[in-house]
Every structure is written in C-alpha cells, then in structure tokens.
C-alpha cells in the first residue's frame, strides 16, 4: 500500500463571503508528483498556501508529513520546501549568498552548506556566474535555482506554485527533468500549473473548478474517462460541463 504523506479532509477556506476552497478532500502519496490544475482563480494557490501553513484554513483536517496544520505549523515548516509564484530568491544577493542564506535559516551546518552548495552549483553549471546577482540571471535559470534552493534542506515535500510560468519550452522540459530526478529520490512534489502538457508529466492530477475538486486521477485514466486525446481536452470538457 502506498504511504500517504498529505491528508486533506473537508478543507474549506473562506474570505468573507467568498469561498476560495470548498470542502476539499484528497490524499497525496509519498514520492509522487501531484498536479493541482485549474483555471486562474480556481483556488489552487489558496489551497497550497493553506497546506504550507501560510494561511489558516477556515475548517477541515489537514495533516502534512505527519504533522497537524493547526497545532504543529512550525514542525511542518522544517519538513517542506516552497517555491512561490512570485520570485522567491533575493534579486540583490548573489547566487552563492542566496544558497547560503536559505541553507542557514534551515539550520544546516556551515560544512553541509559549503559541500551541498558546490554540488548544486556544479550541477546547475552556474560556476561562472555564482558571484553574480540573481537579478542578472535569465528567468529560466532563476527558476531552476529557486527550485534547487527550495529543496536544499532536503524536505519531505516540496510545494511548487506555477514554477514554470513565463519559462521557454526547453527550460520547462529541463525543469521537469529536475523534478523527476528528485521524485525518484523519494521527494513528494505538489505542483500547481495551468500548462496542460505539464499535467501529463504528473503521476496524478486534480482539476479544480470554482474552489471544488472536479476530478482526481492519473492523466491516463482521466483521458479515458473523458474520452480525450490529451489533458487539454480533459480540462476543457471538465471546465465546460461543470
């Protein structure tokens, strides 16, 4: 049996009268890539912010990596990584400084930081530009770096909020290679996107419409159920029928 790492039961998040997340229930298994799809404003980011402990749920039971989202928020935070929609690195710090900073606030030792930083910089082939400010890097590189920094402290789960927005197709492909690599090592990846081709890379996807989960299955099953050639069609059919 697959091991559950995220359990969400009846999660609701309201902003006044507006219901951003309406009674969501789902499980995420350890090591899988879980895609969270939906149109803009469907409530993807809100749900993710609740799961990360950035936002308090209005109601519902949520367990992340074995910790309760209400009472053990700080414990959750040491076990997750997060890459936000907005830019998550400091543009006025160099690549080196950004990595060291995030390593430091996750309580890695100086030795660990140094060793892991060298590995990371070599892997991303950033040796020539490591002393440059992050703002001087092209967007695609920054996103790859931001992902690497988000998992630098080896969390159990990483939350990626539209990580490839505005990135060219080749870099996007490389980005997903990185995700696969980490997923193979056992990292659970929770990713929101509105690129439907990316949805096909996920192990399972949930499609949100107006704050509710309209469908949740593997991409192949979804395509069969909705008699569609690709995820694009699945998405359009679901959004149209609901």
């Amino acid at each position, binding site marked *: 049996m697959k091991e559950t790492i995220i359990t969400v039961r009846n999660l609701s998040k309201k902003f006044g009268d507006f219901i951003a997340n309406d009674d969501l229930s789902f499980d995420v298994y350890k090591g899988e890539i879980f895609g969270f799809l939906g149109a803009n404003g469907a409530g993807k980011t809100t749900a993710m912010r609740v799961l990360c*402990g*950035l936002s308090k749920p209005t109601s519902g039971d949520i367990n992340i990596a074995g910790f309760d989202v209400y009472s053990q928020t700080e414990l959750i935070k040491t076990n*997750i990584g997060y890459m936000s929609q*907005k*830019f998550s*690195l400091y543009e006025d*710090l160099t690549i080196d400084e950004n990595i060291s900073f995030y390593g430091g606030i996750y309580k890695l030792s100086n030795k660990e930081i140094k060793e892991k930083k060298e590995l990371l910089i070599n892997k991303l082939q950033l040796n020539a530009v490591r002393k440059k*400010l992050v703002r001087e890097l092209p967007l695609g590189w920054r996103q790859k770096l931001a992902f690497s920094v988000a998992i630098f402290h080896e969390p159990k789960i990483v939350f990626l909020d539209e990580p490839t927005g505005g990135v060219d197709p080749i870099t996007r492909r490389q980005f997903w290679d990185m995700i696969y690599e980490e997923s193979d090592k056992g990292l659970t990846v929770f990713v929101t996107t509105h690129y439907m081709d990316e949805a096909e890379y996920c192990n399972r996807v949930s499609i949100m419409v107006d704050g509710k989960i309209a469908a949740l299955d593997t991409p192949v099953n979804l395509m069969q159920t909705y008699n569609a050639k690709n995820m694009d069609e699945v998405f359009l059919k679901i959004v149209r029928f609901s």
Partner: protein
Amino acid sequence: MRIILFLLRKEFLQVFRNKSMLPLIFMVPIIQLIILVNAATFEMKSIRIFIIDNDMSSSSRSLISKISGSPFYKIVNTGFSYKQAMDEMHKGKTDAILNIPPDFEKKLFKENTGKIQLVINAINGTSAGLISAYTNTIINDFNRKIIIDASQNIAVNASLIKSLNINYSFWYNPELNYKTFMVPGVLVLLVTLIGFVLSSMNVVREKEIGTIEQINVTPIKKYQFIIGKLFPIWIIGLFELAFGLAIGKLLFNIPMVGSLPLLFFVASLYLIVVLGMGMFVSTLVETQQQAMLISFFLLMIFILMSGLFTSIESMPDWAQYIVKANPIAYFIKIIRLILLKGAGIMEIKKDIIILVLFGISMMSFAIIRYRKTS
C-alpha cells in the same frame, strides 16, 4: 542564534548593496545639519527698534545707551512722536518701539517707579516673544543699576538690594548661541528619520517582492526575523548619531559637556522605540508607498510637536498632553541636557524610563502585529 546571524548577514549585504544607501547615510546628516541649524534659528541678531525719548534725561539716555550697546539691537530711528514711530512699524521698518514718557526720570526719583512703553510687532509671535524677553532683560538690568547707584547715595536696606539683584547669566549656553541649541535637536531628527524610514520600508519591501512568503514557510521565529531586520538599522542609526555629532563639533563647535557613552546608551534605547514604530507601520501596510505616506504623516506630527521648532511650554494644555506621548520630545530634551548641561544618568532617569516603556510597548505592538500566517 545562528539563524539571526544568517539574517543579519543578508540584511547588511542588501543594505550596502543598495546604491542609494551610502549617499543617504552620509549626505543626509551633513545637509540637514547645515541647512536646518543655520536656517531654523530663533536667534535675534538685529532687532530693529525705534526709540521715542520724550524725557531727554540722563536716565533715559542711560537706558538708550544700554540698548544701543547690545549686539541684539539696531536703533533705526529716534524721534518724539508716537505716530511717526507707528508709521514706521506699519511700513515694516521697525520691529519694536520703546516709548519713554517725558516725566520718566522725575517719577523714577520721586516715586521710585518709572514707566516706559514697549510696542512690538507681533505678526511673528515667536520673534515678538523673543524681542520682549530680550528687552525685558535689558530693562531689568537697567533697573538694577539704578538701585545700586541709589544705594550709594542713600542708605538703602541691604536686604532690599539683595532681593532685587537679578543675576542674568545664561547657563549651559553662555553665548546664547542658538546653533548650540539647534544641533542636538537636529541630530535627533536625523536619527529618527533614518531609523523610522528604513524600518518601515524594510519588511514591506519583502512583501512587495514576494520573498516574505519564502521566509514565512521557513521555521524562522518571529523574534529572529524582527531582530535580523532591525539590528542593522539600529547600527546605522547609532552610526548616524556619531557621524552627526562629529559634524556638529567640526562645523558648529557644539559643546559636549556630558558623557558620550551615556548619550549613546540613551540613543540606543530611543532607536528601539523608533524602530518598533517603523516595524509596526510596516506590518500594517502592503506597499512601500503606503509605508512612506504613513511615516510621513507620523513624523510630521512628531517632529513639529517635539519642541524643536516651537517651544512645548507655549503650546496649549491639550497639545502638551500629546507631547507627553512623543518620544522625539523626550530624546531632544535628554540630548540637550547631556550635551549642553552635562546631565548624568540620575538627572534623566525619569525620561529614560519613559523611553524604555515606549520601546517595550512599540516592539510588542510590532511583534504582535507581524504574523507569519494570514
């Protein structure tokens, strides 16, 4: 602790990488001190006075010579007609009129009282007050001289002389140098401005860029974050004070009678108040623009009601109560006491305690308001 060090390193790197930061740190104190200290002065160097001497006695001449001998006065005209003098005042050619009536000396000797009239143009209330104060000083001085002169001729009760012997020596600022008075106040403004603006903009900046989210998903504790954010600004604030003092000494030769360590001790407490307020503003707003606007509003009130430009004693009662809640006013008072008077810790104990209370409450507000979750 290590987390705080990492935060501090990041903040220092960011502050000094910001290209507008270094000029700000060095130019603001120089410009503020040079402009404000020289311009915002209440010193009366040349009070223009019209003298109507209808007595033409040795007493009246003696009084007039006292006035003309003072560096503060410039006698624009003398005459016998009150109307002429008022005309001059209407035309703005004179600031004050001293009217000596015909029987001045006679009354002075016969009845032991003489009356003179002083008319002051009070369009500018502050300077009118000063003219009145200066002139009174001179007249009192004149009074004293008469009594002493009289006592040489007539046997006057010695105790009477003693009781009337008003001694005008201007302590703590013997040359009545207004700059000496202004520099410490302007230094307070400087420290406040830098501390408040930097702290109110800092957290908000991370909100705008979006990096605050990234910080909030980490296990950083609130207090670690706040210390990491404010400590560098605290250091910059103290450095500004040191730099400003050096300039004050070099350019204006301000006295430093009291203990500098004590001054920096109080300044470090005061900065906690300022940074707490800035941080609090920062947690209330979403953009740097909003932060700027609120800072501007608060600083304006705090500065104008600090007793630097207008004296607190001359404010209405209700305003004086507001001043009691103005930390700038306390620090201005303390810095003047230390620099000019050489006050020790015991003399400013009460004000220090008030600053500490301000600091604790502002910091608590900021920490309570700052939330990692929404």
